[in-house]
């Protein structure tokens, strides 16, 4: 736990190497707490740093699947970098944890209607990268509901 607070204390640029130094699977709990604290205090910088650390652990092969729920909540942000990182995370775990992935479909569909083209593009990309055949019957109805006005808007 101490390694987490030590590694993440400084800003994102310089502390990247420290992400990879001490990895323990028990740190996942600490990460979870960090994510929920950042989201509770609405600290954008801390939130992004926490998400970055989750991705770093993911790339090291640590199973950070318990963090899917807080990560989906982290997708609800105006920070594009954070959004992209969360989508990366979701696409990675989508085929192994379909029920949890289902919760992110709404966020993705909402982002598809965003005014910012980057957000629209990222959402479309993530939606098409989710490999979840078993979830499709749940995805389909809301997808169609969101797309219909979108289609009308785009055809104008």
């Amino acid at each position: 736990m101490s390694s987490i607070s030590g590694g993440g204390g400084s800003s994102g640029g310089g502390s990247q190497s420290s992400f990879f130094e001490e990895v323990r699977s028990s740190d996942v709990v600490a990460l979870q707490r960090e994510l929920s604290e950042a989201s509770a205090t609405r600290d954008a910088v801390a939130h992004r740093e926490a998400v970055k650390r989750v991705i770093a652990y993911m790339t090291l092969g640590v199973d950070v699947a318990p963090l899917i729920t807080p990560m989906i909540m982290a997708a609800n942000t105006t920070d594009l970098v954070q959004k992209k990182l969360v989508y990366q995370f979701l696409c990675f775990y989508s085929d192994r944890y379909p029920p949890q992935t289902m919760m992110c479909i709404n966020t993705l569909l909402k982002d598809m209607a965003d005014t910012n083209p980057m957000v629209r593009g990222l959402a479309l990309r993530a939606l098409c990268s989710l490999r979840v055949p078993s979830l499709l019957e749940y995805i389909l109805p809301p997808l169609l509901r969101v797309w219909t006005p979108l289609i009308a808007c785009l055809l104008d």
Partner: protein
Amino acid sequence: MIACSHARSLARSRAQGLKDRAPYVRRIAVISAAKIHRLDAMALNDYDVIDQLYDMLQDHSAEVAASCVCSLNEMLGAEGGMACNKAVLMHLLNRIADFHEWHQCIVLDTITRYLVSPAARQEISDDDSFDILVCRLLARLLLQLSWHSIRC
């Protein structure tokens, strides 16, 4: 079956993405076509996506046009990649300087595949100015590449 319906709905959203105003969204939509094709090869049959992708080779954005070539090559892999004719060839050669290096490789590969085919020999053989034109365009590309290497 469910996978199939999901792919269909994705196909529809992607079809709308193709008409988006932002080039970035269009590019993602073009790439998504290949992704959906991999998920379910039949899903895109109802939406004449292949024709749309051929039309989008004329997109204002070079990134979008080059992504179309990549997607078409991926989706038509069974038929030996994207179909090409003289008009498409000239269009791609005219724009090749706008593409980035990786896309230039893919476009040149596609063009080469066409040029060595019997169809190309038939189409091109009656046009003397064609060789000169291709040489001039490729020379411009080489000049651009060497200019990059000098700057490096």
